């Protein structure tokens, strides 16, 4: 019985997250528009864009190989799997034991490698440029991300996300100073990994400083739609990982249908707040030069390491 409800929960969560991921992106964009005194395109705009792109005919470069064509599907699959592993609505999902947080970071790395390869595949200078920059950001952001996750793992004695949620969210309330450091580091990594300001500007298509957009410049129609969808899924995955570690309250346990409804309502509130916060962060900060990115991510790494050290000093 528990097994069956677990599977239903898993399917429900996976479908739901895929459906609301563009909404998260739309909400962030809408908040940004409001903060910049514009009326904005509305929160449903990403869905309209996806709909439009799916109805267009795809154009491929002459030299595009199988790698270029298959990357959008791999990318989308990776991100979908990632949000299936993260306890968004409920813990004890059947997928969750398959991968802990380290495997999750590996999954993001896999997606990154494929996007970079696809960017270089067609041989345009923009694609190569974007791929190189992406790899640079990635190799700096990953250690910081892992250190952040290790801090949470040290507290809950497990690298599996559901266990972390159970320990932090359903235990007694304790102030963890180390988690404050980890949270700041995590937000910095989130900004860098999702190509947001201060590292990259998500709303530009023609700029010499772009990173993510430079790699996917040659994609069109359904391929582009999948890449865009995967981008919004990645953002949602990162935000929900943040929820699972730093604000794990309200996530249901398996087989608890009433808890599921509450979890859904809590999730929407949390997503709305996080999206508004993200928009605010992006509005008040300016994009930095690419050569300042190592400093930014170095700070994130340092904060995460400090969090771990403080855990050993104050909490062990």
């Amino acid at each position: 019985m528990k097994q069956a409800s677990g599977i239903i929960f898993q399917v429900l969560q996976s479908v739901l997250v895929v459906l609301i991921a563009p909404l998260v992106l739309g909400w962030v964009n809408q908040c940004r528009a409001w903060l910049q005194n514009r009326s904005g395109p509305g929160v449903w705009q990403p869905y309209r864009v996806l709909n439009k792109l799916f109805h267009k005919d795809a154009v491929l470069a002459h030299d595009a190989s199988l790698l270029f064509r298959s990357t959008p599907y791999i990318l989308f699959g990776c991100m979908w799997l990632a949000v299936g592993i993260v306890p968004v609505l409920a813990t004890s999902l059947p997928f969750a034991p398959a991968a802990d947080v380290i495997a999750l970071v590996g999954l993001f790395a896999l997606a990154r490698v494929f996007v970079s390869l696809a960017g270089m595949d067609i041989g345009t200078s923009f694609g190569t440029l974007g791929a190189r920059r992406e790899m640079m950001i990635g190799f700096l952001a990953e250690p910081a991300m892992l250190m952040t996750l290790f801090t949470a793992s040290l507290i809950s004695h497990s690298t599996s996300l559901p266990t972390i949620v159970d320990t932090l969210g359903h235990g007694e309330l304790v102030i963890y100073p180390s988690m404050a450091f980890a949270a700041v580091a995590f937000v910095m990594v989130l900004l860098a990994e999702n190509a947001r300001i201060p590292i990259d500007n998500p709303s530009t298509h023609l700029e010499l400083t772009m990173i993510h957009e430079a790699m996917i410049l040659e994609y069109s129609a359904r391929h582009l739609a999948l890449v865009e969808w995967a981008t919004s899924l990645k953002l949602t995955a990162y935000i929900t990982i943040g929820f699972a570690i730093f604000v794990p309250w309200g996530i249901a346990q398996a087989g608890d249908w009433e808890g599921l409804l509450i979890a859904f309502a809590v999730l929407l509130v949390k997503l709305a707040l996080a999206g508004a916060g993200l928009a605010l962060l992006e509005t008040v900060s300016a994009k930095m030069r690419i050569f300042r990115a190592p400093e930014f991510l170095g700070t994130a790494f340092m904060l995460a390491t400090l969090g771990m050290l403080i855990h050993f000093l104050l909490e062990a």
Partner: protein
Amino acid sequence: MPSLPLWSQLINLLAALLLLLAFAMLTQRRVLSLIRLFAAQGFVLALSTLVVAYTTNQPDLYMSVAVTFGLKVLALPWFLHWLIRKLNVQWDIETVINIPVQMLVGIVLVIFAFNLAAPISEIAGTITKSTLGIAIASILLSFLMMIARRKAVSQVIGFLAMENGLFFAATSATYGMPLVVELGILFDVLVGTLVFGVFFFQIRETFESLDIHHLEKLKDR
């Protein structure tokens, strides 16, 4: 993990904030932001002392909270603001050498300080015993800042931040020094800063810059 009482947790949180601010000062380029961070550090220091005073019920400490707040959150930052306005270095951006390297050195210092404090914390009986490592770490970080900076104003802020760390160390090791000693030190710091202020004007008059580097060439030829 046995959970600590709430007050103790709060002190730990404030101690962690203090360390964070020490790191922020280490990596801050702007003089103006540096002064703001210094004021914030003073505020966190006063707050944590207040919590210690309340939990351990020591009227002496309330006094030092008031003096700390008055001096380190209001008077000294105000004086420094006035000073940089007079010297016209408000918008100065310092060319700090290689911030990532400084941060790595900072992390090594923190590890060193934590290890240094561990045996002392073990035998101490105060509720603040685990924060001694953080106090030593912030002293060392401020020291590093004084070494790495080239402008006179930031060096003085590093000196003041070091005093903050020492004050915190005293609070966490022995619930603060006797009031007479504390007042003496604070008075020294105040006078020291005023004297430094006079020095700034002299340095600028002689070299037309506040860069300490010029002081290395003081030979008569």
